[in-house]
Structures are given as C-alpha cells and as structure tokens.
C-alpha cells in the first residue's frame, strides 16, 4: 500500500445538536445505503473465479511516439517470440504516447498501486535509483546470475542499473553520447574548413559569428535552454558546458551538490552570449517544447542551421523509416566532439544516458517477467533496437556485429565519445535539481536575470531542495 489512507481523526465531526429530525433520518438512511454499497464493493473486489494456472498475462509498459517506434517494433517481435516459447502466457503491450517527462509521470502513477503496476517496463537510467528507493523495481541479481547472456554486457552497462544497495535492478537497452552535429555545406559557405573540430568555447563562438556574418538569416549554433525542452536542455546543452569547465553538478565522493562554482556562472554566460548575439534560435523558439522537431525536421536538413548539440541517436530521425527521412544526411552532416572551456584535458566532453528494461516489484509473475525481459534484450532484439534507434550498443556481441557498425557513418565517432562522457547524478533529488538548472538557463536567455543572479538563485534553490548540509562550495 503506497497510498496513505485517511486517518480517522480528520473525518469531519458534525454537531449533533444542529441536525433536524428530517436530516437525521436522511443521514441514517444514507449511512445504511453507504454500508450496503460498501459491502457490494467488497464482494466485487474479491476474485470472481480462481485464475487458471496457465492463463497468465504480463503487462508491459513503454514509451512510443510518432518519432519513436523502435522500441515498439522490438517489443512486438519479442512478444511473438516469447508467446511461442511460453504457451498460455499472454504479453499485453501497453505503449504510452507521451514525451519523456510525461511518460515518467504516467509510469510512476501506475506503479503506486499493485492493480495498475506493470510487470515489465521501460525505465530511464537516471530514475533507477530513486524508483528503487520508492520500491517500484524488483532486484534482479538472482535472475541475472542464471542468465548466461549477462556476461556479454559491458561493465558500464551493468552499472547502469545498479542502486545504492549494490544490487542490480534494471538492464540497459543501449546507451548514448552527445556531440556537435553540423551541416557541412553551411560551414563551408561561411569559409570554415570541414571536418570541423572546435578546441575551445571561443572556437565555437568564432565559427558561429562567421556563419552569421555570411548569412544573417541562419541559426549558426544551437544549444537547448529553458524548461520547455526538459532534460534536453541540460543533457544537450548546459551540462556539455558545465562538465567542460572542470566543475560538476554533484560531488560523488562527498555525496554533496556543488554550489557557487565559477563554472556554473561561466556556462550560463556562454548561453547568454549565444542567445544575445542571436547565434542560437530565438528565446521564444527555445521555449517551445517542440523546437527539437524543427531542428531535425526543418533547419538542419534545409541548411538553415549550422550546428546543434544533440545525441548519438540523431541519425535515427533521418535514416530510412525515421520520423524526418533525409537520405542526404550521411553526406551533408558531420559530427564533432564538444570542446572543454579552454581546451583543457581531456579535450572534450559528452553526456550519457540511456534507457533500460526493469521488472516491477509488485509483479505477480516475476519469473515470467524476467524471462520476457531477457527475450526482449537478447542478441537479435538488442541489435535491431540499437540499429533502428541509433543507440550505442551495450552488449559486446552486438557492438562487434557488422550490421551494427554499418548502421550509419557516425557509429564509430559517437561511440568513441564514451571515453570523455559523464553521467547524471541519479539521486532521488536529481529531477528537482535539473529543473532548477533549466530555470536558470531560462532566466538567462530571456534576460530576466544575469548569469550571476541566476547562479545565485540556483544555489538558493539547491539548498532548499537538499538542505544546507548536503551542499559544498567549490
């Protein structure tokens, strides 16, 4: 039971004296009927008939959108495979059509009651720890020990589903990195040599200014900002900057959140420069939750944008069957590592996330649920998901597959970024902290606060969220 029930003392006490006889009669009759209905309700709740041992249903919940059907395809294939191998078991696929934020909310709401909780579900890596704390995920250690294919997962992948207690609760489908994606023809028109690899933040600004000078109607260099793009704002924007200043969001050793860092203000200042000089999209466009659709579907393919910071999954939008098919992308697009602030070691920065499959803690058939999970993540299915969704493989046998390596011309480049990548601090407080960062970027690009003011507001917000003893000045 996760829903707190109403304690007795908060029930309203009526003053008996003020009741008229008629009212009292009505109340009495009402309470009799209430009792009758309650009894009816109780009998309806008891199981109508004992379920046959063979007729079992697994409920699988995952995300599906108009531009993201890769997982839907894979799970449909896994369902057919699993049902053929396990007679009498029905897999019920329940896709949720929503963006990442709303999907997470819907999933969490369904997990609050055993009646609605899924058996197997699609879970963002950065939510694993807090959802384990909430008691939503089943510990998989016992099952994984007996699954011979677990050995083919890389160590980083195994860690992705690990919670604070050291147990593993989720198995990743794939991972991703972030890089600068640029349109070669736009850069060349501005006289910038390709392949392009900026070494510092100033290199980026210099190149963007050249593009703007060559064609003022262009969007030279885009980085997401503001609350509308949610995690995209921080993963494909602010963190690329912050983790390249030598600063960080969370001190893993001290287990404390960093406040008052110079890197934070510098990163905001960079965004401000980008937006003030109209090198990025307009603030109004940035605050539209659908801005990324125009980046992928309109500006980059039409040569209206020089470069943007986006994930390694970018080709999945443009390849055959993608949401914004564009055969020319293999020729026209290039990929570059995002540089550190002054070119300091290791020379570049990237952010990684990724999604997993997990088994619900309230599942009535955990054995079957794990069996389905292992089917959905077997070599064949993992390969087709990683190719269709341009994911970085987490199984060594998939990574070595020629079909995976030939999926798009950028697999090698974006996979190599794993060497400089960072992960979000996946604590239970993270979503609120992330939102505070997004607010700071929004305040800066809309001009309501200076970078210093926004950074101070962020520090205050962090102190309020985690408490003064869980922050560290750096």
């Amino acid at each position, binding site marked *: 039971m996760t829903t707190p029930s109403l304690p007795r003392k908060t029930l309203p006490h009526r003053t008996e004296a003020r009741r008229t006889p008629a009212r009292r009669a009505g109340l009495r009759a009402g309470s009799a009927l209430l009792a009758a209905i309650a009894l009816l309700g109780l009998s309806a709740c008891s199981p109508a008939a004992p379920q046959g041992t063979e007729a079992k249903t697994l409920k699988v919940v995952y995300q599906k959108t108009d531009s993201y059907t890769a997982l839907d395809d894979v799970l449909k294939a896994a369902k057919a495979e699993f049902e053929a191998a396990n007679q009498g078991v029905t897999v019920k696929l329940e896709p949720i059509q929503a963006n990442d934020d709303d999907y997470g909310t819907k999933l969490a709401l369904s997990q609050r009651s055993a009646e609605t909780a899924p058996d197997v579900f699609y879970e963002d890596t950065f939510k694993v720890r807090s959802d384990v704390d909430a008691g939503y995920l089943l510990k998989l250690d016992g099952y994984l020990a007996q699954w011979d294919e677990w050995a083919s997962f890389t160590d980083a992948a195994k860690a992705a589903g690990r919670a604070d207690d050291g147990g593993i609760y989720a198995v990743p489908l794939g991972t991703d990195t972030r890089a600068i994606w640029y349109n070669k023809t736009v850069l060349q028109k501005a006289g910038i040599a390709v392949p392009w690899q900026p070494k510092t933040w100033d290199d980026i600004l210099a190149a963007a200014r050249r593009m703007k000078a060559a064609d003022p109607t262009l969007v030279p260099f885009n980085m997401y900002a503001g609350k509308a793009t949610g995690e995209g704002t921080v993963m494909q924007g602010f963190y690329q900057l912050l983790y390249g200043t030598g600063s960080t969001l969370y001190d893993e050793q001290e287990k404390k959140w960093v406040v008052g860092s110079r890197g934070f203000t510098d990163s905001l200042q960079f965004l401000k420069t980008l937006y003030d000089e109209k090198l990025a999209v307009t603030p109004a466009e940035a605050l539209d939750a659908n801005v990324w659709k125009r980046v992928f579907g309109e500006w980059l393919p039409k040569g209206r944008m020089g470069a943007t910071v986006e994930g390694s999954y970018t080709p999945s939008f443009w390849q055959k069957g993608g949401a914004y098919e564009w055969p020319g992308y293999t020729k026209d697009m290039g990929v570059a590592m995002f540089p550190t602030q002054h070119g300091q070691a290791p020379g570049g920065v990237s952010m990684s996330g990724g999604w997993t499959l997990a088994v619900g803690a309230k599942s009535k058939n955990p054995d079957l649920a794990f069996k389905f999970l292992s089917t959905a993540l077997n070599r064949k299915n993992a390969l087709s998901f990683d190719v269709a969704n341009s994911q970085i493989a987490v199984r060594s046998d998939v990574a070595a597959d020629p079909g995976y390596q030939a999926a798009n011309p950028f697999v090698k480049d974006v996979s190599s970024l794993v060497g400089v990548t960072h992960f979000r601090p996946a604590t239970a407080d993270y979503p609120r902290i992330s939102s505070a960062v997004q607010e700071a970027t*929004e305040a800066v690009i809309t001009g309501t606060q200076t970078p210093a003011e926004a950074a101070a507001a962020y520090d205050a917000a962090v102190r309020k969220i985690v408490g003064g003893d869980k922050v560290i000045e750096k």
Partner: protein
Amino acid sequence: MLSPERRVSLGSRRPGVIRRRLRLLPVLPSVLLLALFLLAPVAWSFYASFTDVALSGKAARDPSWLGLDNYARMFSEPGFPLALWLTVVFVGASAIAGQNILGLVLALLMARGNRVLSRAVGVAVVAAWVLPEIVAAFAAYAYFSRDGTLNQLLGLAGAHGADWLYAFPMAAVVLANIWRGTAFSMLVYRAALADVPADIMEAALMDGAGGRQRLFFITLPMIRNSIAGNLMLITLQTLAVFTLIWVMTTGGPAGASTTLPVLAYQEAFKFGDIGYGTAVASVLIVVGMVFGVVYVRLLREAKQ
C-alpha cells in the same frame, strides 16, 4: 383522489418518517457518487498536503508527516505568490470583467438588434463554447503563435506582429478565455433579460427615463440574481482552467502565465512532489470556496 394515499399512511406506524426517507431515495445514488468521486479525492488531497508524499524516491514508499511545512514553503518561494496573483488577474480580467461584461453587452444588443444579425452573432459566439476545451486551446494557440493567424493577418495589413505567446502570455490566455467563455454569460443574460417585464420598462419610459437610467435602475437590479449566479459559475470555472493555459504557454515563459492549477500540476507531476502540489491545490479549493460563499451571500441578499 386523496383517499388511497391516506389509507396507506394510516396503515403505517410512522408515516412521516418513512415517507420522508423514501423521498430521499432518488438523490442517494448521486450523493454517494459525489462522496466517492469528489469528496474522497478532496479529502485525500487535503491529507496529502500535510505530508511529503512523492512520485518517486523514499517518500513514495513511506511518506512522512510534515505538518504545515508545505504551506510555509509556499510563501518562502517566489513561484506561489506569483501564481496566486496571476490567478487573480486571470479570473478578474477574463471572467469577472471579460466574459461577464461582454456577455451582458452582447445580450443587451441582441435583445434590440436586427434578428438575423443577432442570430449570426449568437452562433459565432456559441461556436467557441461548443468546442471541446482542448480543441479551443489549440485553435487559440494557432491564432496567437508566432506564425499564427493573427500575425498572418497583421502581415497582410503590412504590420509586423509580435510573438504574442512569448511577449504577452497573460494577455493571450485572458483573451482566449474570454473568447471561449463569453457564450455562457451571453446565454444566461439573454434568458434573464427576456424575463424583465415589458410593462415596467414601459412605465419607466413613460416617466421619461433615458436608456442609461433604464439600464442601471431597472434592468440591472432586476437581473441581479442572474448576475450573481453567473458570476459564481464563471469564476469557479475560470479558477479551474488548466488545458487552455497548458496548451498555449505551458505556464511560461519563466512562469509568467503559471496560474495555481498549472503550478499544482507542475509541482505534483513534473517534479513528483505530490505533497506540495496538493497543498497548492488545497489553496485553490479554499479560494474557490471563498468566492462561492461571497456569491451565495450576494444571491441571498438579492432575494430579500
């Protein structure tokens, strides 16, 4: 005609009580349904607002009692006072001023205007009201957005429109809500005006009362009841508007159109802090109740 009923009453021991009980029977299902689906969630929401219950993390499994912390937090964070103020502005400008006055003016004009014209106006106004909220919200978004209808029309006239949803988010959602809700007030006032007896008007006319005098001293006092009832309904309706704002601006930019329902939703479901979200929702309920009580008083006075 009386006799069979009388016989039955005489036969029973406590005729009044039983009959009174039976008379209540038809309303019981609705009372029970209301209690189950309306009162219970409201009670739960009040309870949750005193805890740190969350969507995820430890507090999801084992919420702890916070007392009044959530309510204290509201006033230490700038988000809540701003949302409260914007809610007052939204209700004041779009419901009490906009829908109410525009509805009354339309009803007055329609009462004396050309019949064909007034029918056409009526259909146009009611059309916005008939649309489901989500459709109306998208229509308003399409009208005010950067490449939307309004800017295209301005472009035709040679003017250069602003980015309305970004530069004037509150004005845009207020106008959209007026557009959507005026029909209701108009219909209420048309019915009320039709009930104003013609002979009183005639008498006033004979006494030499001008148009303005007739409006303020005869018409308005006579439809006072309808005005109070209408105000109550549209205020409560507007307090709860969520879809329209969410679709048009998502409460942005930088919280500039975040009213209380939007804030409650964001806190509870975007940040997973159900405790704080329900606290905001509880304040909304209280604000609604205060408005309700004020209007009920007005109605009562009007009756006397």
